[in-house]
């Protein structure tokens, strides 16, 4: 289904649209990729999270630009300028709450988006590069969020920055030099804050660029779907507009209600109170934790009693995702037809939640043990279970087409009979 029979929308007949389109085919692009764009007819609400993530990127860039207009990236002025935004700038509190909680919302959306991909096998042929680009976006998001958290220059900002940059000191020989270079000095200080602000402002636009590549790769073969089988013909697809624009808009409204709840009624639930204390390089808070969305990775870091080992394992927990399309040896995409994988998928989700819990606790006793067991399970899932499942699992029979289970056997059979199918 690389190409489809494209029939232009009525608005393409407008003379101004034609004039512009002849010189810059932007309307053709919109019409082919957003309006007439054929999407599988059976996408469920989990397919909303890609567009939600895109909208969150826009929300974060907009609120961030307006925050930057009032922010002072210096160790002397950063903390006070954030206080000024909260108290004196018109609606500054609103814009900052949107940005703070927006980061959490962005990660929730992206985590669901990633789990959706894992459940329905969206990373498999022919969408491997699409999957890679998604991981790149995720890595850039983590770097951006980390640097953004440093900017208010509270105690958690400062010590988070100190701990995370010190990760690089684990590497032999070059480690110390890398850390010195990251800091631009002998500790996290004014030069560090300056460059983190510059990069925090830059990164979202880099993310936007990779998002365009992500969408480009997506639109080559089109969206995967809950059945995980390829579309066999036009009866398996519906135009993106109005079907999925409306579905996305409805999901967006529901999502914004949840987002608004946090912004207006519970803005600090997802943050840490220690960040209301200005950074003090002489006193470390008794219990350092990253923002909630980094907790699972923090747990992996602390699971190993070896400095370099912990760092390598933490980076490895993301790097392993790049190999996923080949570690998963099953040819069936959707977990709907993979009874054993479905069990392991939910065990993996529980494993990630356990890591998150362990990451939030002090690294000792039961939480440390849970973190270690979950870390082992995390890597076993990718390195042992997934490769073996492809061999030992007996998948359920796949439906003949997307239209068949949607429209019911009889009708789909009729359509299928009139349309010769290509072999998947």
């Amino acid at each position, binding site marked *: 289904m690389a190409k489809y029979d494209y029939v232009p929308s009525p608005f393409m007949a407008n003379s101004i649209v034609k004039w512009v389109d002849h010189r810059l085919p932007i309307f053709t692009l919109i019409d082919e990729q957003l309006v007439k764009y054929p999407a599988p007819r059976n996408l469920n609400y989990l397919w909303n999270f890609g567009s939600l993530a895109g909208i969150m990127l826009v929300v974060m860039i*907009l*609120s961030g630009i*307006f925050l930057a*207009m*009032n922010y002072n990236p210096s160790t002397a002025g950063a903390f006070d300028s954030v206080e*000024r935004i909260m*108290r*004196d*700038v*018109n*609606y*500054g509190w*609103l*814009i900052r709450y949107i940005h703070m909680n927006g980061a959490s919302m962005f990660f929730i959306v992206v985590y669901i988006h990633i789990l959706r991909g894992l459940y329905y096998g969206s990373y498999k042929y022919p969408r491997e590069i699409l999957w890679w680009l998604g991981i790149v976006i995720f890595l850039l998001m983590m770097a951006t969020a980390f640097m953004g958290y440093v900017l208010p220059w509270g105690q958690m900002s400062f010590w988070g920055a100190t701990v995370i940059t010190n990760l690089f000191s684990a590497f032999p020989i070059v480690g110390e030099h890398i850390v010195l270079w990251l800091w631009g000095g002998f500790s996290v200080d004014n030069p560090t804050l300056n460059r983190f602000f510059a990069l925090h402002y830059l990164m979202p636009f880099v993310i936007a660029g990779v998002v365009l590549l992500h969408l480009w790769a997506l639109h080559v073969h089109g969206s995967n779907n809950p059945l995980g089988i390829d579309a066999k013909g036009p009866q398996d697809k519906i135009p993106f507009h109005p079907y999925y624009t409306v579905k996305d808009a409805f999901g967006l409204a529901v999502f914004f209600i949840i987002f608004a709840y946090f912004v207006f009624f519970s803005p600090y639930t997802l943050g840490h109170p220690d960040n209301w204390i200005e950074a003090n390089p002489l006193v470390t808070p008794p219990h350092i934790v990253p923002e909630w969305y980094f907790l699972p990775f923090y747990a992996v870091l602390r699971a190993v009693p070896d400095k370099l080992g912990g760092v390598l394992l933490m980076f490895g927990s993301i790097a392993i995702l790049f190999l996923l399309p080949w570690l998963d040896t099953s040819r069936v995409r959707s977990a709907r037809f993979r009874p054993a994988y479905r069990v392991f998928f939910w065990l993996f989700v529980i494993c990630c939640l356990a890591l998150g819990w362990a990451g939030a606790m002090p690294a000792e006793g039961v939480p440390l043990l849970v973190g270690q067991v979950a870390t082992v399970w995390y890597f076993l899932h990718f390195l042992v279970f997934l490769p073996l499942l492809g061999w030992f699992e007996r998948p359920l029979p796949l439906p003949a087409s997307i239209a068949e289970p949607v429209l019911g056997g009889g009708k789909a059979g009729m359509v299928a009979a009139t349309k010769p199918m290509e072999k998947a």
Partner: protein
Amino acid sequence: MAQPGSTTITEGEGRKHPDGTTRRDFLYLSAGAFAGTGAVLTGWAFIHSMNPAADVLALASTEVNLAPIAVGQAITVTWRGKPVFVRHRTAEEIAKAKEDDKAALPDPQPDARRVQKPEWLVLVGVCTHLGCVPLGQKPSDAKGDFGGWFCPCHGSHYDTSGRIRRGPAPANLAVPSYAFTNDTTIRIG
């Protein structure tokens, strides 16, 4: 369900009125209006964040103690980030300013309307031409041909009432709103 007799049911469109409108039209319009209103209100919060903040507005008025300013002396104070000239005028300067009420003024205004007490002249020290700060506050400064102020940027001459007399500036030096809180203190703004 009780429906007005005029409605008909068409497949896929829901109930349709004779004039061609459907429930779907109503949903489109109400949802669109709802989203549009939300977007405008949110947009206003962002636009309003660029207006002067509370701490900026808190500094919008400045108090000046006039007691230490001797006759013939002038001081410059900062008000809203701009210089304000406060001149304790001599009797000759006051007389000259009143006499010049009858002169040919590019921006006619009697001296009496530019002061609250004749000996105290309070002006925004920004040339009305292109925003330079005119000379004339220090004893050593050039005061221009009319004994008031002289703008070095493009050669505007102001008199002892701060009125434009010669040069490219179109208007007199502005008089800020101020009030005497007591005999020797003014609050500007």
